[in-house]
């Protein structure tokens, strides 16, 4: 690059963003590794080694967070892939209500998560909620969706899928529309049916979209906080506590070192899963 352009593309342009990003994001991230090893009051800290991490792995009310976080991320992201793909295929087909259906499916993405959480926790009320009222009409006694420790996490995950499937769908729609026309023509010449089209063309060739949905929703699922907090606050008991809600609880309790250790664990958790996952997914992608 010539000298002139070095001056034109000066790093001064980067400076404002870099300052904000480094001070507000990078510095706290780096410092979190240190403060996770302390007992911390914001003004003062005591170095206590790995004590916080030990607590995290020994206390059953905290270890449950790992399991729940993983289940939640896996369930929401896999269901978003399945429903997003099916809806994407359906909504790129020749149907008349296409734009209506696309809008309806996408709309929940834009509604406040807290609002969605409140509305659904009312609809999931064990006796009076709409869901169980509707089931009662069919003669089925519905479960206590958010009160039963065995299904509460899945109930929240269901709402997450409801809210997030619109985004997955539009990503799949973009991916499916990007498949070149030749493939469909080749299929017609070979005499393939609708199933072949789906399984042999759309599924393999929309892999970039699939990968994007998996990665995005997996990261989102691992970090998920607001929906869970607005619906169950981690309860009943600790049945729906995830790492992010545990961080908030420890923060509220004034255990800043412990909360920060939770943050470090979440960081390691996310990178340890997402980095290899995205490496694997992009390696197995096929070129169009």
């Amino acid at each position, binding site marked *: 690059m010539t000298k002139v352009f*070095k001056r034109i593309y000066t790093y001064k342009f980067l400076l404002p963003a870099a300052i904000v990003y480094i001070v507000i994001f990078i510095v706290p991230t780096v410092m979190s590794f240190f403060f996770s090893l302390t007992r911390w009051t914001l003004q003062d800290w005591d170095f206590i080694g790995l004590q916080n991490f030990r607590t995290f792995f020994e206390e059953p009310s905290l270890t449950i967070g790992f399991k729940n976080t993983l289940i939640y991320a896996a369930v929401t992201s896999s269901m978003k892939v399945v429903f997003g793909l099916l809806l994407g295929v359906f909504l790129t087909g020749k149907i008349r209500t296409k734009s209506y259906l696309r809008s309806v499916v996408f709309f929940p993405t834009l509604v406040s998560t807290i609002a969605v959480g409140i509305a659904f926790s009312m609809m999931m009320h064990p006796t009076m909620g709409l869901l169980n009222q509707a089931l009662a009409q069919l003669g089925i006694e519905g479960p206590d969706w958010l009160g039963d420790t065995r299904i509460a996490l899945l109930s929240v995950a269901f709402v997450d899928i409801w809210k997030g499937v619109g985004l997955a769908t539009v990503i799949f729609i973009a991916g499916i529309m990007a498949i070149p026309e030749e493939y469909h023509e080749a299929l017609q010449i070979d005499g393939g049916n609708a199933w072949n089209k789906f399984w042999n063309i759309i599924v393999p060739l929309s892999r970039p979209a699939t990968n994007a949905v998996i990665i995005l929703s997996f990261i989102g699922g*691992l970090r998920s906080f607001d929906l869970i907090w607005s619906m169950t606050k981690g309860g009943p008991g600790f049945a729906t506590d995830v790492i992010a809600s545990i961080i908030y609880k420890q923060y509220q309790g004034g255990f800043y070192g412990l909360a920060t250790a939770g943050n470090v664990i979440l960081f390691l958790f996310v990178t340890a899963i997402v980095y290899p996952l995205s490496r694997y997914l992009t390696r197995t992608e096929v070129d169009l």
Partner: protein
Amino acid sequence: MSRRLRKVGIEAAAVLASAVLFWVPLYFVLVTAMKSAKEASDMSLKWPAKIQLWQNIKDVVAFRDHMLLRAFWNSSALTVLSLAAMVVVCSMAAFVMQRRKDKATPWISFFVLAGLIIPPAIVPTIWVLDEIHLFKTMTGLVLVEVALGFPFCVMLYRGFMAAIPRDIDEAAVVDGYGGYRLFFTIIFPLLKPVTATIIVTQAVAIFNDFTNPLYFFPGSKNVTVQLTLYNFTSQFISQWNLLFTDILLITIPPLVLFIFFNKKIVAGMTTGSVKG
């Protein structure tokens, strides 16, 4: 013929399913917001005996010394200020990151893209904000939104900027333009489509943000619309009608954006993810 019939049947089923899955919850919010407290407590879809939406709006707005008005003011200020800062700062950064090629650029990209994955460290961020006396302030919260939105915006801007030919830069340099004049008078106006996309998607994201205000903007005066919703859940335990009126009111701004900018929003969210 029968195949066509089946197709119409599937489509009709899809429309019906969309009504049950998506319109029923919306209708539920709407009717509950129109009811009296007593009627709302039965949590049903029944049409209210007497529509008192206006009364509910007045009640929820007046609640706790007009807390909701302050919240709307704060949320709007937060959204507008963050967007303004984000657009300027991120487009400038993306300009250098996309155009410049030297030893440092891959590292810069790495650190910025890492921000898409890494969850922000909460308490250390509070500590930093406190050290620079910005904890519990609007400025502090704006900076948090800018810092956390930076990787996504840079990604969008960089993708778009790659399609703007370098010949333009060279011609401008030949005409004696410096970096700032080149960027602000030529490049930035060309970025308008992606700027619009960023404004709409980020406006929705920031307006709906709950976690960051919860952590970095506590205090009774510092309330945003999402926080009112959260605070009201414990206070309106027997007044679901008011809670749902609040939901209705704070859903209106994103709804309006959605109606006008549906295509832009979808475009922003998909290009951002597939190219990333």
